[in-house]
């Protein structure tokens, strides 16, 4: 018996001015599921992720995380926009990892990790540090706590970024092309951390061009193009036997 889905998108649309970026996206992600989102550049993948943690506002449709409407409160028929404080309260449970890491360069790896737990959740510093060190060890960087991001390789920076997101104890992790900015030889170390995370039952939405990862780790795969979901299903089946011409054309380029 499955309960509420972790993420439920029901005909979600989003435009920037006259540019319709998302057109009626519907999908659901169950707790513990790993969903890979693939598609050509500009198809709206990042925008969709940003909508899930309300960094962007949806124009139409309904988007909810763990049964809660994102960015709005529903009272009867009417929707009320959430205050910034309430919106950020929803974000506490959603971790996000970016293509370009976005670590805070003026803070050490450890300081990067402890900021949000201390300032948002009010966790005492000693406890936050202890947890941060555990997380650093979990991503294989136990000895790099006092390094500034500029002194770490891309792969190490991205692993710190993952640890930083995990420090908030999220129930959902969003990855936006986490390995696209990395030198090829550093991709593996980041994917390994993500695999380990998936194996612990974390719900994950991963935008990626790493089809090997999708085949091996993902429970489902969604192919987006031009702001619509073109095809979705079991990753091994979709990759082996794509039903749509556009999917085939895209896969022939990335595989």
């Amino acid at each position: 018996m499955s309960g509420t889905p972790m993420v439920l998108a029901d005909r979600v649309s989003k435009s920037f001015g006259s540019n319709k970026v998302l057109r009626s996206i519907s999908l659901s992600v169950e707790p513990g599921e790993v969903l890979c989102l693939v598609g050509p550049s500009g198809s709206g993948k990042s925008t969709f992720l940003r909508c899930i943690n309300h960094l962007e506002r949806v124009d139409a449709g309904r988007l909810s995380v763990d049964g809660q409407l994102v960015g709005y409160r529903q009272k009867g028929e009417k929707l009320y926009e959430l205050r910034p404080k309430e919106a950020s309260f929803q974000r506490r449970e959603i971790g996000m990892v970016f293509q370009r890491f976005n670590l805070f360069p003026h803070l050490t790896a450890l300081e990067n990790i402890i900021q949000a737990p201390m300032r948002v959740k009010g966790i005492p510093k000693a406890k936050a540090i202890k947890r941060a060190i555990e997380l650093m060890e979990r991503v294989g960087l136990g000895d790099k706590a006092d390094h500034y991001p500029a002194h770490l390789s891309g792969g190490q920076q991205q692993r710190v970024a993952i640890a930083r997101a995990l420090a908030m104890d999220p129930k959902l992790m969003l990855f936006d092309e986490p390995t696209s900015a990395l030198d090829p030889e550093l991709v593996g170390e980041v994917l390994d951390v993500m695999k380990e995370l998936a194996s612990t039952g974390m719900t994950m939405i991963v935008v990626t061009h790493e089809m090997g990862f999708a085949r091996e780790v993902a429970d489902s795969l969604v192919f987006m193009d031009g702001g619509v979901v073109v095809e979705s299903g079991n990753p091994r089946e979709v990759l082996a036997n794509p039903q749509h011409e556009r999917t085939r054309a895209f896969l022939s380029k990335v595989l």
Partner: protein
Amino acid sequence: MTPAENEPLAADQEGEAIKAIPLRHPWRVLIAALLVLTLAVFVIDAGQREEFGWANVSKYIFDKRISQAALVTLQLTVYAMVIAIALGLLLAIMRLSPNPVVKSVAWLYIWIFRGTPVYVQLVFWGIVGLIYPVLTIGVPFMTPWISFQNDILTNLFVTAVIGLALNEAAYMSEIVRAGLLSVDEGQEEASRALAMSWGQTMRVVVVPQAMRIIIPPTGNEVISMLKTTSLVAAIPLSIDLYGVSRGISAVTFTPVPLLIVASLWYLLFTSILMVGQHFIEKRFARGSGRRKAEKSLQPRGPLPAAGDITNIRVNNKSEDKQ
């Protein structure tokens, strides 16, 4: 890199060392020599001219009245800048705020205070104390609830600080705004994704990074402010360095030596400020560039020479294989 690569190569494998004659720069030397010579001639000549009144320079340079006035100038500078930086930061953040009311207020302030001469503003603040001798709080055009003497703008020193600060804040806000805008958007996004509030994002993430961009022009502004304080004569306040040296020369009829005295004091302060700026810049360069990384908190396994990026990668790879 494998250990083998670090071992010295056999002698016959190494290329011949370069032993070239370094490039000469004869013109640089010549021009420098000429400039030094010219300067020497000027100094010797100036030393012999009556008008410079060197005796008076040495007499007044450590005069109690002058050093006291120098302190006033320094106080005016520091107080005005501290207020201007705080207010400038506030205005810059207001201009970047999503709230249109807040944004317009900041815009209007900058429009007025940057658009009129500081000298005129100082004259104006000097007069305001006369126009509004009594301040009141209450419903407009009714009997006021509270009224009190306008002590603030009748104190000329305080008026000068306020006048200088309000003008400077307009410039500081533009400097701060440029600094805030220089911080990569991904930083704010990452901070918000971590559920930090807008205020926390500014305080913890954006402002500290903007400091690197903000400090050099701010140093410039401090030095500029040091000299702008000489305009407080418009208030009129005459206890600052320039005011006092002018006052003395009006009595002794020796303007040039006192101008030199004042200039030397201004130069002294400017030099001290430049040293201070150097250290502040260093402080906020934290995490940038390839400065030697600090020692690890919990060393584990064989540690590489921290700080060398290639070493870190090497270590990391071998670690992953374990």
